[in-house]
């Protein structure tokens, strides 16, 4: 969060429109949902990598060797390249990954806009490492390193970096990856090394003088993180329902976005693009930001919970957090129904926090209970006075 605030501050000082508060909050909400749904995944007990390693490993590579560590990191980055590439080139995987590309801004918050459904198939790409014999502990270490590396490249504030741009994934070449300009589509999939893209013919250098337009060709136009996660699945479902015969129906999910075609991609006119903007009032933006700051400790709590000890409670908590992000997202969109739902949510949370013997295992001191009850009440009263209007502008593009 601190890095996001620093980046936003620096951008403001430089007069760059890098951030849009509703968009950034939506990115953070996506990150929250991605993390808390990971808890449900833990509940399902599908530690697939470890199971494959246990059952099928060729050898046990030493986890404490530097050489093995470097080779494991390289192997992970290679597997990540293919996972990421397929994430763009196969409908069922794109449905999960599209979340990360749905922001029309490019900043550190976008890096946190992560999918909640990527866990369904993502693990398959790393099975070769399990079979070779990379121990799960080492695998998870290099996975975290690869993931953390990718955070800093999501910024417009860092320009070109010379030779580094040719070897590593950097802000410059990752900006290309997030662009919808014609030359940006399906390019620069690397995680740490951009060398994989050079090797497999998917590299594109950032062009001077051509402004990159971020986002997806069919704009999401929503601040609802659940819809953000499901909208492309919905599209595929509709498409497969319309397809005739089971093979065609299945084929929809396996085809590339746009279907099996050798025709060139439709031209994208960058000049006519308008960013999605719901003209959310300044007060409502502040309200949403404050609500988000209250969600963060809840996420930390749920991540620290022993979810297997109380699975139903964990599911309930996850649903509560998801409901919060949805309500706030819909408020940012200016939907009137969100006002009623949000007021109900505030009422229920206020009452529950005060009256429950403990808050999902956390025995809150009285002062905190009173403070949260007061905060809920104040939010409720303030919200009741607001006139919610929906006036979205920006339909993405003329496509």
């Amino acid at each position, binding site marked *: 969060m601190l890095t996001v605030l620093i980046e936003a501050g620096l951008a403001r000082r430089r007069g760059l429109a890098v951030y849009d508060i509703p968009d950034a909050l939506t990115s953070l909400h996506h990150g929250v949902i991605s993390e808390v749904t990971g808890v449900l995944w833990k509940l399902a007990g599908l530690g697939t990598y470890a*199971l494959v390693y246990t059952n*099928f490993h060729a050898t046990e590579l030493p986890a404490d060797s530097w050489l093995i560590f470097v080779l494991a990191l390289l192997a992970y980055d290679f597997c990540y390249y293919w996972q990421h590439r397929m994430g763009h080139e196969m409908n069922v995987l794109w449905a999960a990954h599209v979340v990360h590309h749905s922001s029309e801004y490019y900043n550190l918050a976008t890096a946190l806009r992560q999918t909640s459904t990527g866990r369904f198939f993502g693990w398959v790409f790393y099975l070769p490492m399990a079979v070779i014999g990379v121990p799960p502990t080492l695998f998870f270490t290099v996975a975290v390193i690869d993931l953390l590396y990718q955070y800093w490249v999501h910024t417009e504030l860092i320009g070109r970096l010379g030779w580094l741009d040719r070897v590593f994934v950097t802000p410059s070449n990752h900006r290309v990856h997030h662009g919808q300009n014609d030359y940006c589509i399906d390019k620069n999939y690397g995680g740490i090394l951009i060398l994989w893209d050079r090797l497999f013919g998917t590299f594109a250098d950032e062009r001077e003088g051509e402004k990159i337009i971020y986002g997806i060709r069919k704009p999401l136009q929503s601040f609802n993180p659940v819809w953000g996660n499901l909208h492309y699945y919905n599209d595929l479902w509709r498409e497969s329902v319309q397809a005739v015969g089971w093979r065609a129906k299945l*084929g929809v999910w396996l085809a590339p976005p746009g279907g099996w075609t050798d025709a060139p991609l439709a031209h994208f006119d960058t000049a006519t693009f308008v960013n999605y903007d719901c003209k959310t009032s300044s007060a409502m933006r502040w309200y949403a930001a404050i609500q988000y700051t209250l969600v963060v400790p809840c996420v930390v709590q749920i991540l620290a919970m022993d979810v297997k000890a109380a699975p139903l409670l964990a599911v309930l908590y996850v649903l509560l957090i998801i409901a919060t992000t949805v309500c706030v997202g819909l408020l940012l969109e200016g939907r009137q129904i969100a006002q009623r739902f949000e007021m109900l949510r505030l009422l229920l949370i206020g009452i529950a926090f005060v009256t429950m013997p403990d808050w999902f295992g956390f025995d809150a001191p009285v002062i905190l209970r009173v403070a949260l009850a007061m905060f809920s009440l104040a939010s409720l009263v303030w919200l009741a006075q607001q006139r919610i209007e929906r006036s979205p502008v920006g339909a993405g593009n003329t496509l």
Partner: protein
Amino acid sequence: MINADALSDLILALVCSTLAATYWRTRPALAQSSGVFAIAASFGVLRFSAIDFALGPHRFFSLVAASAAFPLLAIALCWPDDETAKRDKAAARMLFLLVAIGIAIHLSGFALWRQILPVVSVLMMVIAASRSKQAASIFGALFFVAGLLVAALGQAPEFVLGPFSATQAMHYLMGAGFAMLGWSLYSRTSH
């Protein structure tokens, strides 16, 4: 030193590799499924030659062959005009999906999955072969059926395969099945 089990897997690996190399461009689904069998059999050669590290990969690729390569082979033969059979990327994606589903189901404890899928796939291949009315196709499919039967029974009927163990018999029957399949496709294209 190579033993009888390893030799049987070597034959299977060679037949499958040949098929994969021959049809890599023209029949990608067939080639990819044969390729998976070739990889599994190659690890089998090493495993039966007492090279310890090959045991895990052999079991893994055998699982992939059973739960993904068999169905892909059936698709390639039953619907040769389908995108999955014709396009290399489509075939690879189907293989990916089948691997994901197959491994997830296997690891969740439903071990029968790796037996059900090959049986269903081979039955589909028998139907496709009988429709083609080609002797080589029909024999090929029947060899696959026999291979699965031997694997299921855990022993080879003595009057059929005499001195071979169940493992060897399964490998030889599968190898024969692939060889007949290749022969039928070759004779079809050459006419």
